[in-house]
C-alpha cells in the first residue's frame, strides 16, 4: 500500500486525501518510510535530504486530516501532499544551511514567504534538501555536507545546485519539491533526473527568506514529476509579496488551466522557435538525438516549428560569470561572524575573526566566486568586466525580444550533456560552468523557462541511457503558453514511449 502511494502524482494524492480514501498522515508516513529506506547519508544512499522533519511533517498532516474530517474545504488543491524544500529557504522549525558550514545548525528566526505559503496551503514539508553551497554549482558536489546521488545511476551527479530537490523526486521520496534557479539550478537537475523543473518569470515567486546568491538572477520555482503537478505548486507559491520589492504585482498566470488544456495534445497554431545557438557543437550526440525526436513530436501535435537566431547568446556564459560573482561578493559579505552563523578565532580582532571564519566556513567554489566578483567590481576593471557584462545582458534580452516576435515559445536542450560521473568536473570550474550554457540566457533576461523530460539518450546514438531534458522558454509572465506546450509534449511523449519516463528509473539499490 505505502509503496504504491509514493509512485502517485501530487494531483492523484490530493484527490485521494481530499476524498478521505487515504489520510494525509498515511501519505506522509509512506514518504518518510521511503526516505528512511533509500536516503542514507553522505557516504551512501541517495542523500537528497540534509534534514528530515518527521514530527513536524506528521503534525502538519494530522491537521489536514482533522480539517478534512470536520468537513472544512482543503486549504489548497495540494493540502496534505508532501514536499521537499531546498535548504536555501528559511524555516523557523528546521535548520537552514544553504549547503554551507558557515550556517551549520542555524535556526532562522523567520519563515521565508515560500515556506509560509506552503504551510498555509496545508502542504506537508518533509524536510530540507541538499544543494551546492549557496546555490553555486551544477552538480551538488559543492555542498559542505556531502554529495547527492542520481537515482538513475548512483555513480553520477544529479545536477545542481538543486540536486537534492530533483533526486528526491526521482527516488520517489517526495512528489513535489521547491528549488531555486540562478543560472539553471532547477532546470539542469530536472533534466539530469528525468523530472520537471520550472524557473518562473523573475519576480513571479517571492525571494523573501531565500538566502541570496545573485539577487538580480535568483528565482524560486516548483519541481515535480509531472507538468500538472508543477503547475499546481506554481499557483500555490506565486503572486505578489510586499516583503520582496522585486516581486511582480500582477496576477499569477493561469498555469493549471494551461497544463490541463495542453494535456489534450493539440498545439495547432502554436509557433515554436528552435534557438540555433543552443544546440549543435558542444552538445552530446544522445542529447541532440532526443531533442530532434522531440521536435518531430511537437510538429506531429500541430505546432509550427521555426528556427530563430539569438546571436549574443554565445556571450551569455561570460556575462553571467561576471555578473553573478559580482553580486555574490556583495551578498556574502553579510557572513561576518558577528550576528549569526559560525565564528572561529575567538579573541583576535574583528577583522581577523571575519577572515578566519570565512576561510573556515566557505568552500572553494564560494571563495572563487567571491574573489572573482571582488576583482570584477574593483576600480580599473569595473568597466571592462562588470559594466561590459551588463551591456551584454541588454543585448541578450533584445535577442529574446526579437525571437519572441517570431515564435510563441522557444525550445532547446536543457543541458549540453546527460548526468556526468561524480568527481568528473569538481576540480575544473570552467568545465562545470559549461553545464549552464543553455539555461543562463533566460536568467539574464528574467523570462520564464522550464525543463520537461524528452526521453533517454539511447545507446544506439552515442548516448548512455540517461534522461535528457527539453527546455521550453516563454516571455516574462508568459508561463501559460510554456506550460501548455510542455504538457502537450509530456502527454505525447508518454503515449509514444509507453508511459511516464520516471517510471523507468531503476529501483534504488
Amino acid at each position, binding site marked *: 500500500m505505502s509503496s504504491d502511494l509514493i509512485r502517485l502524482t501530487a494531483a492523484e494524492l490530493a484527490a485521494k486525501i481530499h476524498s478521505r480514501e487515504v489520510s494525509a498522515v498515511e501519505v506522509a508516513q509512506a514518504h518518510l518510510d521511503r526516505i528512511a529506506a533509500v536516503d542514507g547519508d553522505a557516504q551512501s544512499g541517495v542523500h537528497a535530504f540534509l534534514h528530515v522533519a518527521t514530527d513536524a511533517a506528521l503534525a502538519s498532516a494530522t491537521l489536514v486530516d482533522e480539517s478534512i474530517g470536520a468537513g472544512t474545504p482543503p486549504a489548497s488543491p495540494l493540502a496534505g501532499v508532501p514536499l521537499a524544500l531546498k535548504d536555501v529557504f528559511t524555516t523557523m522549525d528546521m535548520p537552514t544551511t544553504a549547503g554551507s558550514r558557515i550556517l551549520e545548525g542555524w535556526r532562522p528566526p523567520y519563515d521565508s514567504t515560500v515556506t509560509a505559503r506552503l504551510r498555509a496551503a496545508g502542504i506537508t514539508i518533509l524536510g530540507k534538501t541538499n544543494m551546492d553551497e549557496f546555490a553555486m554549482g551544477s552538480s551538488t558536489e559543492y555542498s559542505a555536507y556531502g554529495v547527492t546521488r542520481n537515482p538513475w545511476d548512483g555513480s553520477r551527479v544529479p545536477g545542481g545546485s538543486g540536486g537534492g530537490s530533483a533526486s528526491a523526486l526521482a527516488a520517489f521520496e517526495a512528489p513535489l519539491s521547491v528549488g531555486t534557479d540562478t543560472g539553471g539550478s532547477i532546470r539542469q537537475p530536472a533534466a539530469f533526473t528525468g523530472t520537471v523543473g520550472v524557473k518562473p518569470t523573475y519576480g513571479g515567486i517571492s525571494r523573501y527568506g531565500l538566502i541570496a546568491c545573485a539577487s*538580480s538572477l535568483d528565482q524560486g520555482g516548483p519541481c515535480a514529476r509531472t507538468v500538472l503537478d508543477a503547475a499546481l505548486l506554481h499557483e500555490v507559491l506565486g503572486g505578489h509579496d510586499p516583503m520582496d520589492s522585486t516581486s511582480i504585482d500582477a496576477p499569477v498566470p493561469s498555469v493549471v488551466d494551461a497544463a490541463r488544456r495542453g494535456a489534450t495534445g493539440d498545439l495547432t497554431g502554436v509557433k515554436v522557435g528552435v534557438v540555433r545557438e543552443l544546440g549543435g557543437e558542444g552538445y552530446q550526440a544522445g542529447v541532440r538525438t532526443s531533442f530532434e525526436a522531440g521536435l518531430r513530436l511537437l510538429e506531429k501535435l500541430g505546432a509550427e516549428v521555426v528556427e530563430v537566431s539569438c546571436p549574443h547568446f554565445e556571450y551569455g556564459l*561570460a556575462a553571467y560569470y561576471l555578473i553573478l560573482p559580482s553580486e555574490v561578493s556583495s551578498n556574502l559579505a553579510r557572513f561576518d561572524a558577528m550576528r549569526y552563523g559560525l565564528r572561529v578565532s575567538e*579573541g583576535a580582532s574583528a577583522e581577523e575573526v571575519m577572515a578566519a571564519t570565512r576561510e573556515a566556513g566557505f568552500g572553494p567554489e564560494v571563495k572563487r566566486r567571491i*574573489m572573482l566578483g571582488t576583482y570584477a567590481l574593483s576600480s580599473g576593471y569595473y568597466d571592462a568586466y562588470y559594466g561590459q557584462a551588463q551591456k551584454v545582458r541588454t543585448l541578450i534580452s533584445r535577442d529574446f525580444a526579437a525571437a519572441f516576435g517570431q515564435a510563441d515559445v522557444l525550445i532547446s536542450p536543457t543541458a549540453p550533456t546527460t548526468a556526468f560521473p561524480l568527481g568528473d568536473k569538481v576540480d575544473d570550474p570552467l568545465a562545470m560552468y559549461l553545464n549552464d550554457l543553455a539555461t543562463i540566457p533566460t536568467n539574464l533576461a528574467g523570462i520564464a523557462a522550464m525543463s520537461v523530460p524528452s526521453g533517454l539518450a539511447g545507446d544506439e546514438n552515442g548516448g548512455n541511457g540517461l534522461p535528457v531534458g527539453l527546455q521550453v522558454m516563454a516571455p516574462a509572465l508568459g508561463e501559460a503558453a510554456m506550460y501548455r506546450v510542455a504538457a502537450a509534449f509530456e502527454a505525447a511523449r508518454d503515449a509514444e514511449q509507453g508511459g511516464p519516463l520516471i517510471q523507468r528509473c531503476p529501483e534504488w539499490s
Partner: protein
Amino acid sequence: MPAISRDEVAHLARLARLAVTDDELDVFAGQLDVILGAVARVGEVAADDIPPMTHAVPLSNVFRPDELRPGLTQEQALACAPAAEEGRFRVPQILGEEQ
C-alpha cells in the same frame, strides 16, 4: 602573461576577508586565471552605445505601506548569535589599542 597573478589573488582574498592558505593561493591563482580568460570574451562585443541592464524588471522606489508590524524580539535576534551579552551582540575588538 597570466590575466591575474598570485599576488593579485592574495590581495583579492584580503579585500574579501578570506584568510586563504598558501596552498589555496596556488590553486586559486591558476583557476581564476583560466576563468578570467574565458569571461574576458564579453570585451569582444561592440556595445559602446548599449545601456547596461542591472535588473530584469524595471522597478524603482517600491514601498510597502508604512504600518507597524511585529518584528523580531531581542531574544529571537540574539538566539543564533555566536556570542551575546546583556541583550547585545558580543563582538571581538574592532579598534586597535592605539586607536
